[in-house]
Each structure stands twice: as structure tokens, then as C-alpha cells.
């Protein structure tokens, strides 16, 4: 037994292909990004090393900070608006006696569709004339509330965030439900006997018990919000005039519309750094509050 499982050739055969694939198409580009982030390069002529110039430029670039701010909006919305809503829905569903399967199936649906296609659907929903939203408003007499949702500074970012929420809320609801149903029955019954029912039970008993899953949800939401690209790209391309730009779309624009590959790579590195920093901060915060509990 030991000999078979110590067979170096077999090990090599098993590990080498995936490692090779991964290193070539993942690790090498990562190193490449690190390298080119410190150069000035237009994609044609050889790259010129320019030290930290790109990073300095990013930090003083007002457009870059607008994109960072938008990513933070994303994070804020995901954590402080979506998550309470998700918990509410999950708790409601878990407290109902019937219909779990039906609700799970239906709310989960948007998360399996392509983000790009959802972007197209909702761009159409937000269309100023033929779109669902404005038609709805006009037909109930609220014509004054009709806007060019994706074209106005004030409403564009919010519209994109709502679409994003539409896509992912169901996914997290199902995730939370799985966690809620994993709570041992004894605990919920004990709580009921003690007199905690309905909302009070949910808040004081259920939610704390699913803390780990909530933490995962928050983590996924935050990393997702930092990485956001497809949805903004398809719906607004960062418009109107750059007010919905996020870091990833800004990076894309630098590379493909303006041919500034060095700068784009520097931004890519910054996205990674910011995401990691935020994640670590959350881990730290999580541990602190856990200790308190």
C-alpha cells in the first residue's frame, strides 16, 4: 500500500499537468502584472522601467479615486443593504412551514444567468422610453419619477447596484437557508420552549448561530464588490462620463482604450492590494467581535 502511494511517477502524472496549466495561465500573468506595473508601456515599443511612477500617478489621479469610491459604494451596498435584506428573507422562509423548495428554486434563478446578459436585460428595463421601470411609473401616474436611470449621475450607480443585488440576493438567501437548516433542531426547540418565538427567536438565537456563514457571505460580497467589472461594463461602460467607473473598468479603459498597459497593470496590482487589505481588516474585525461574544 505504501509503495503504491509513494509512486513518484504517478504523483508526477497527477500533479504536473494541472500545475503546469495553472502556473502558465495564472501565476505567470500575475508575475507579469507585477513586472509591467513598474514600467511605461504602450504595447508596441519595449517597456521602459519607471519605478513607482505609475503608482504615484494612480494615487494622485482623481479619476482613479472616483473608481475606488464607486467600489466602496458597491461594498457598502452589499454589506449594509443587501445582507440585512438577505437575512430577513432567509429567516422568513425558514419560519414558514411550506414552500421552501419552491422559494429556494425561484429566488436562486438570477444567480445562474450570465452577468453580461443580466446587464443587457436591466439596461433595457431602465430604458427611458420603452423600459419596464418607466412604463410602470407612468402607468401608475408617477411620471415625474421617471428618469433616464443609467444616464443621470444621481441614479446611475444606484441602478447598477440594484441590478447587482437582483442577481445575487437569491444566491445568498439559499446559502443562508442551508446554514439555518443545519442548526441542530434541539437548539431551536429549546429556544421555543424558553419562550423565544418569531422575530425574537430569529434575532437572538438563529442569527448568532449562523455567524460563520454570515461571515462567509460578507467576505464573498466584499470580494465580489471589489472585483466588479462585467455589470458596470455592460450597463454603463463607466458612464455617464465616468461616474460609475470602478477600478476594474478603469483598468480596462487604460489598457484597451488608451493603450497605457503599464498604468493598467499598476491598477491591477492596486485592486489586488486593496482587496487583500479589506479582507484582512474584516478577518481581524471578525475575530475581535467573536472574542467579545
Amino acid at each position, binding site marked *: 500500500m505504501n509503495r503504491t502511494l509513494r509512486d513518484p511517477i504517478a504523483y508526477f502524472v497527477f500533479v504536473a499537468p494541472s500545475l503546469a496549466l495553472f502556473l502558465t495561465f495564472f501565476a505567470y500573468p500575475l508575475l507579469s502584472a507585477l513586472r509591467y506595473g513598474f514600467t511605461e508601456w*504602450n*504595447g*508596441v515599443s519595449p517597456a521602459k522601467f519607471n519605478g513607482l511612477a505609475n503608482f504615484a500617478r494612480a494615487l494622485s489621479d482623481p479619476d482613479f479615486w472616483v473608481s475606488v469610491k464607486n467600489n466602496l459604494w458597491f461594498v457598502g451596498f452589499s454589506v449594509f443593504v443587501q445582507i440585512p435584506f438577505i437575512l430577513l428573507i432567509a429567516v422568513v422562509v425558514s419560519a414558514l412551514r411550506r414552500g421552501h423548495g419552491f422559494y429556494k428554486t425561484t429566488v436562486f434563478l438570477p444567480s445562474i444567468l450570465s452577468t453580461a446578459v443580466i446587464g443587457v436585460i436591466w439596461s433595457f428595463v*431602465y*430604458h*427611458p*422610453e420603452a423600459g419596464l421601470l418607466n412604463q410602470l411609473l407612468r402607468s401608475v401616474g408617477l411620471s415625474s419619477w421617471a*428618469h*433616464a*436611470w*443609467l*444616464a*443621470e*449621475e444621481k441614479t446611475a450607480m444606484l441602478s447598477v447596484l440594484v441590478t447587482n443585488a437582483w442577481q445575487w440576493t437569491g444566491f445568498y438567501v439559499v446559502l443562508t437557508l442551508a446554514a439555518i437548516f443545519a442548526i441542530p433542531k434541539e437548539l431551536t426547540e429549546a429556544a421555543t420552549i424558553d419562550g423565544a418565538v418569531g422575530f425574537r427567536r430569529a434575532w437572538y438565537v438563529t442569527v448568532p448561530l449562523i455567524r460563520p456563514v454570515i461571515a462567509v457571505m460578507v467576505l464573498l460580497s466584499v470580494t465580489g464588490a471589489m472585483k466588479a467589472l462585467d455589470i458596470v461594463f455592460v450597463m454603463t461602460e463607466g*458612464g*455617464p*462620463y*465616468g461616474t460609475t467607473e470602478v477600478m476594474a473598468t478603469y483598468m480596462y479603459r487604460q489598457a*484597451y*482604450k*488608451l*493603450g497605457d498597459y503599464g498604468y493598467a497593470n499598476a491598477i491591477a496590482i492596486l485592486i489586488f492590494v486593496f482587496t487583500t487589505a479589506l479582507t484582512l481588516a474584516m478577518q481581524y474585525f471578525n475575530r475581535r467581535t467573536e472574542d467579545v461574544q
Partner: protein
Amino acid sequence: MRGKRLVWTLACGVLASGMLLAGCGGKSSGGESGGAQASVQPSAQPSAEKAEPFTITLRHTQIKDTQKKRLAMLQDVVKATENEVPGLKIELDGVEDKVNRFEKLRAEMAAGNPPQIFDLFGGTDTRDYVKAGRLLDVTPILEELGLKDKFYSLAEFTVDGKVYGLPMAGYVEGLYYNKKIFADNGVQPPKTWDELLKAAETFKSKGITPFALASKDAWVINMMMNTMWVYTAGPTSVEDIVAGKKKWNDPDMLDAFKKYETLVKKGYFQEGNLALAYAEQQNKFAAGEAAMVFDGSWANTPLTDPEKSKVANDVGFMLFPALGGPGDGYINGGWSNGYGFSVKVKDNPRELAAVKAFIKNMYNEQMQKRQLLEEGMLPALKLSDTSGVKPIIAEILSVSSAAKGTFPAFDSIVQPKVREALERGMQELLGGRTTPEKLLENLQKVQEEANRGS
């Protein structure tokens, strides 16, 4: 059962490696078998490798719903070309026009691997690509086919006396207006700025959109803006700015932008225009809901198509009203969009033959006349007979010939970064986010930086 699994794994492995080999091998666009020959035979008759098939790629932008006829014409050219060159297969690759011009093609030029034949814009684009050595010099082909003097103007595609692209049509830009709406409201086509403001006010009060506009695609905004600043500052203004002799924020330039701001502030532009893509402005006009729309001659097709447009018979075309400057009465026009060819074609006699055949079939009197009649595309070649055209075309042609002169579009002269900055700035102006002064100040900064760089 278990053995099957092993077989499956092996099969997948074979499949994967097969794909790998297929991908590596067949990817490079055909014609390897010919072998590179140093000299190009003038009368390209591929000799020994007659029947051996090879493929070249043709990148085009005729993918919109409204461009079906143009695509059909292109396909006819492709067929004729394929018939002339044995073994040739032309693969049509359609990409959206602005994506091709500003992103895909540019990136491919940077990488050095553009398609063999592609949709190309003259001016800055051509100059940049020639500098990088990516374009085929077609001057010898033109001489061979006797086409050199048949074109109205090859200026935008000529660099250092050599021609690198061939325009497929000419264009002009001006103000389309709905004759019926004007007549019903007792308004005469405006000839001055004040008349224009009065007309717009009349229309607005009747609930008619004065100017249809779709500004999500930012380049659309600059069609009218370009004409306006040339009117106030003169037809050589852009060249002077790029040469450093003039500034974006000079008072005569500022005048035009301020006038544009007036139109924005008074709400004369289509509502929600920042959310609408280009085709929507034609849609609005064609639905009879807008009085005017500033657009190019190419737009005559959707506006006068009786199947798609409600106002097909009421469309008129006029010059933008005079603004009281040196450029009044000029018209924005030129021959700036056509086809270019990859320099790599030179090393492959079969591909070169294909290119020649394409040029021959695309650029002849018959095809140009057909474009004019069916699509209202102004000819690039001098035609001996321009009869039988649609009334709107006749009107466009007469307006253009009555103009004081033509000037080229600004984006064929300025650097890409400047164009981007202006596009962004105009969207901000429409959104009320900036003022003409700030816009131009910023633009001048970008221009100076770009001038230093090049």
C-alpha cells in the same frame, strides 16, 4: 465499467492534444504552402498551387440592422473576388464600428496582427498605423488598375505621398429637418443662430423635440460641435490647434461651446440622451417626434426607408445656420472611411492577388453607383452618371456643392487622447457637470501634453 473510465480519460487526453495541435497549426491565416517569394509578380496569376485553398479575413463593420443592404453589397464583392482567385475563401468578420475603430483594430495594430483586409479610417488612424509599419502601400496596385486619378480625394489615406487605404464612400454632415413639422408650425429653415433659437423654442412649446440626440456614444455629440466651432473659429482651427498656433480655449472657440451650452440649458435636446445609443436619435426623428437631427449623409438610409420611417417623404437637409464666424457656410465632409490592408500581405503572392482582386471588384463605377442608388452613399470615385438617385440624395449633393468649402472631421486630425477628452467633456456638458470654460481649459491641457508626446 472501470476500464471504460481509463479509456475516457485517454480519449479526453487525445482530444485535448488534438485541439492543441489544431489550434497551433491551422490558426495562421492560410497561404503557407505558397512560400514567401521576394518579388511580387505584377500580373499575379498563382501558377502551381491552383486548387489549394487558402483563407483571408475581411474585417467589416456592416453589422447593424440598418446596414443589411451594405452587407449584401459587400458579400457580392466577396463572391466576385473569390471567383477570380482560385482557392480563395474570404472570411467575413463583423465588428461594431466604434469598437473596431477605437479598440479592436487599434489593439491588433499594436500587436502587429491585424486581419488582411479591414475597415479603416483615414487621418490620424492611418498615420499612426503607417508609423508602426502595419499598412500595405497600395499605390502600385492603384497604378496597375488605373484607379489613381479616379478618386475624388485620397488625401486622408496618403502619407508621404504613398496611399495606404481606399475610401469606399464620401460623406458630409449637416442638419436633417422634418419639412412637414416646419410647415405645420409655420417655421422657415433657419439661416442664422437667432432664427434657430426661435425655431427650437416654437417646437419645444408644441411638445416636439427640437433636436434628436443620442449621446451615450460620445462621438455623436461632436458631429454638431465640430461644425459649430469651425463656423465660429474657421476651417483651419483644428490643424492650427494641433500645430500649437491656436488654443482650444481661445475666445472664438469658446463662443461655439457657449452656444452649445445654451441649447443644452434650454432643453432643446432629446430627453435622456445620455442613456441612448446612436441609433436612437435616428429612431426619434424617423418616428416624427423630432424636428431636426444633426447627422451624416450615411444616415439618410434609415430616415428615408419607407418601411422603417414614418417621415420618409418629409426629410430635408440643410447646412447648419450661420453663427457669425469665418467658417460659416462650410460643410464637414470628406472621404475618410474605407478599407486598408495588412502589410504582411506583401510577403504572400496569393494573398496579394486576393487583395488586388478585392480592390478591383470593390472600387469600380458599377459598385459605387449601386452604393449611391441603394444606400445613398456619396461616391468616392468620380462617376460619369449620377442620375436616378433618391430626392434626399439629390438634396444632399446640391447642398454640399453650394457650400463655401469642406473641412475634415476633427478626429482625423487630433490625437486619440484629445478626442477622448473632448468626448468625455461634451458628455459632462450635456449632463450639466461642467462649463464650457472648464471643458476647454482641460482640453487644452490634454492637447499640449499630446503635442509634446508626438
